[in-house]
């Protein structure tokens, strides 16, 4: 066992010192998508070893959760994966609802699916823009951010916030969506597939983009499973697993969609899989819009769900419940649950342990980028240094969820 008190050094292997060089990539390198530091050993331009050094954004969110009431943790979860905020909310809410044995009304479930899919589109758009920019196709970034802006406006309309929504709460949603919300989503969805064609026109036939991605960053299915890779990179390695279809949650069993798979196992496969995934998300959103049920968006549980403002101001009981929830929280039955969902970046999971009080005993988050980062060396070993940038872009990491 190595001594934890010793600073890490990555010396070149013995006997190779003359031609091997150890360089730092990051923590402020533009292609690392955040504060990621990679210690890279190179032989000329060939990558010999890659060692990710993480923790620059560590804020101890799991420890903070132990000192908060259950409902106070929702806004913390937004800040972990800030590109796909609603998946975090959804996963946490589902885990606590499992402990509470609570069923949310159908409209809340459908709205959750709608918001989670919009959030996935948001995350994939940022991935596409930054990935293409890393490769040198700067224009695509401007195109994808044009559509991302539309999604952020929809978010703002529904929750009053553009990025940290906290819209999905324990027991339902924060509030009713505005009256014209579904029409606005419909308008967005109607034109969005054309926009995907536009990105595809810019990139798919582009010889530079193709050459930079094809055959680069090979990750076999066996390696991907051993290294715990999930989400689009796993499906691009030919493993047919998507929790939305295989272990449905929040009513995903009601929707029909395809799960794109590729067996090429390279960066190009990951690009193609995510592009098709965006089209499938559009299909899911269309089905939600077509069949949106009527009814409340909050569960009928006055001791857990905050009352409406109007009721709180006019009814004594609602005021008491409001006061109790805000000052004392609500007790959650003792036990432990794990809830996994398919977020934009891969499988997110929340492990919540309750000791029967109003504060969780332990909250642990499993985030896909944290695990996927381990596969970096496998994908880059023996390849050119410039391919490292393409591979980082293709696995789509978010440093907020790696460091937590």
């Amino acid at each position: 066992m190595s001594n934890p008190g010793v600073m890490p050094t990555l010396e070149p292997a013995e006997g190779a010192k003359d031609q091997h060089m150890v360089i730092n990539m990051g923590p402020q390198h533009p292609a690392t998508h955040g504060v990621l530091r990679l210690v890279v050993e190179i032989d000329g331009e060939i990558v010999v070893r890659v060692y990710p050094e993480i923790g620059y954004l560590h804020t101890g969110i799991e420890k903070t959760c132990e000192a908060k009431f259950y409902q106070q943790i929702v806004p913390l979860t937004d800040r972990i994966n800030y590109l796909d905020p609603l998946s975090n909310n959804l996963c946490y809410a589902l885990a606590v609802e499992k402990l509470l044995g609570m069923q949310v009304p159908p409209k809340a479930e459908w709205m959750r699916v709608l918001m989670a899919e919009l959030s996935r589109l948001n995350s994939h758009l940022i991935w596409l823009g930054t990935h293409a920019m890393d490769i040198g196709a700067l224009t695509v970034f401007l195109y994808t951010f044009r559509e991302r802006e539309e999604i952020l406006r929809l978010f703002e309309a529904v929750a009053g916030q553009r990025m940290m929504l906290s819209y999905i709460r324990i027991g339902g949603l924060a509030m009713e969506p505005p009256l014209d919300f579904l029409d606005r989503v419909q308008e967005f969805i109607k034109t969005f597939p054309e926009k995907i064609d536009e990105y595809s026109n810019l990139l798919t036939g582009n010889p530079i983009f193709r050459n930079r991605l094809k055959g680069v960053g090979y990750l076999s299915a066996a390696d991907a499973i051993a290294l715990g890779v999930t989400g689009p990179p796993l499906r691009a390695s030919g493993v047919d697993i998507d929790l939305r279809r295989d272990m449905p949650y929040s009513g995903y069993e009601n929707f029909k969609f395809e799960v794109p798979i590729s067996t090429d196992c390279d960066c190009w496969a990951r690009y193609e899989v995510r592009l098709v995934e965006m089209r499938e998300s559009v299909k899911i959103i269309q089905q939600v819009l077509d069949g949106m049920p009527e009814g409340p968006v909050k569960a009928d549980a006055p001791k857990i769900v905050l009352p409406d403002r109007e009721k709180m101001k006019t009814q004594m009981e609602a005021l008491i419940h409001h006061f109790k929830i805000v000052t004392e929280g609500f007790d959650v039955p003792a036990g432990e649950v794990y809830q996994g969902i398919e977020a934009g970046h891969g499988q997110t999971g929340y492990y919540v342990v309750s000791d029967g009080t109003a504060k969780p005993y332990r909250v642990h988050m499993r985030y896909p980028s944290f695990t996927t980062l381990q596969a970096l060396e496998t994908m880059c070993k023996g390849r050119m240094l410039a391919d490292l940038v393409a591979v980082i872009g293709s696995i789509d990491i978010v440093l907020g969820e790696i460091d937590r």
Partner: protein
Amino acid sequence: MGEALKQTLVDKAAVLAGLAEHPAVKAILGWKAEALTEAKFAFGELTLTVAADQVLSAAGALQAAGYNFFEDMTAVDWFPASPRFQLSYHLLSHAFKERIRLCARVDGPDPAIESITSLWAGANFYEREVFDLFGIRFEGHPNLRRIMLPDEWEGHPLRKDYPVEGYR
């Protein structure tokens, strides 16, 4: 298994009686029935607890039985109870579309357990995280160093005797 999903099976005897056909239960019984110390089925999730020195071989048996994907691993500090630390491994089966939780408990001033990185290389970061934040050593881990905190950091923040705010 549709009916079983709704009920709660509180102890080992109930799980062995109620879920005898469950692939994970069968795998563990076929591997070493006496190493299974506790079992529970609650909230639709199966929890199997094995003796701390048997984790690697139990995980190996489950991997062979179809639980091919290592999803998550973390610890829970039950301070001041003894044994103090509970390690929870979440294993997913791509074939059964199902997840189980494998638990083990460790104790003592220098808690340690076998590393499962030989089965799933992806457990590497998770074990380093638990080592960093809980101070549990993983024997056989290829690179057991702090991962989130600086190397010179004192203490293990996710332990319950480590305060949430203020000075240590």
